[in-house]
């Protein structure tokens, strides 16, 4: 089994996992999903062997987000649910308003965009996490971005 201290694993993946979960389930429920994700990762740490650690933990996070949606029986972040009070986004931080738009994308696109830009996965890893082909993952990200662009342009008009 991997002998890499879990402490380093946690430190390395906590930021993208939280960003991804916020995009998937909304900021208020992301905290619980975060705890569940890393607890599952800790308990199953030996199964990490042979996987990309980022893709492995994101697969867990994705499953926790899906469980969460099943439990609450609602779509991830109903559009318009308030995001935490954050000052006007600086260019250096992920834009919460834009992530609110991501929450309104169709499931596959939302997941793919989250894995790509919140979790910072490669397309190969996104494909593994979503159990699909690399080409399909790439297409979902692209379509998601296209849809975001259309929505933003529509709003700006």
């Amino acid at each position, binding site marked *: 089994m991997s002998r890499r*201290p879990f*402490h380093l694993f946690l430190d390395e993946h906590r930021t993208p996992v939280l960003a991804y979960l916020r995009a998937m389930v909304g900021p208020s429920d992301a905290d619980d999903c975060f705890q569940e994700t*890393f607890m599952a990762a800790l308990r199953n*740490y030996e199964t990490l062997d042979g996987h990309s650690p980022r893709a492995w933990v994101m697969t867990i996070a994705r499953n926790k987000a899906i469980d969460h949606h099943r439990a609450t029986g609602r779509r991830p972040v109903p559009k318009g649910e308030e995001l935490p009070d954050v000052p006007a986004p600086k260019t250096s931080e992920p834009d919460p308003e834009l992530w609110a738009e991501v929450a309104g994308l169709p499931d596959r696109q939302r997941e793919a965009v989250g894995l790509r830009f919140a979790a910072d996965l490669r397309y190969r890893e996104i494909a593994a996490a979503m159990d699909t082909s690399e080409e399909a993952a790439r297409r979902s990200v692209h379509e998601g971005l296209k849809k975001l*662009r259309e929505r933003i342009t529509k709003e700006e008009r």
Partner: protein
Amino acid sequence: MTKNDAPRDAGAKKGAAADEREIEVRLRGSAGASDDSDELARRFAEIAAASGDAEVAFATLDTPVGTTSVAATSRGIVSVGLPNHALDDFVERLASDISPRIVEAPGRLDDARRELSEFFEGERRNFDLDLDWALVPGGFYRKVLNATARLPYGSTKTYGEIAKSAGNPRAHRAAGTALGVNPLPIVVPCHRIVRAGPDPGNYGGGPELKRWLLGLEGSL
């Protein structure tokens, strides 16, 4: 399509690509942007240490001689890292010799940190902590460290004397080796084992720290 539409269409396409890049930048933010995940990770670590899902918890504390590390399992304190011991190495060793399920959980180590701080400040003479001897090899090593653990504050013994207490008076070299790999310095006070003569001898934390500790205890 008129003649004029062609360039405008190309321009629109280029605009769309630029928009999407802009969207990517806004989604991603720059790496290392601040977030709350450090607080959530700290909370997670404490929960995992308390539940036992993390088999080892570690923490650091500042002392007058530098940053000291301490780690515990569910059985008790399993290792103390003196200031000359790099934290990364300390954690790596616990991960490889005890369990990789290790987290930083200072709350879990409140008592140990407090008692160690008090000792370094000269306000504590004995430790009231459970110990886990998992990193101590068995046999003669274990006997030497057991005998060392019973040495009172402010007292010293020579390597020959501690070898004798451990049941083998002629094994003073082996006693030195056992003390050199003591995973629980301070708590198992190997600094109280000294050479016969003015120089107190070697120490895992460095000879200067040994002199400092003996000075603290008034036995120099």
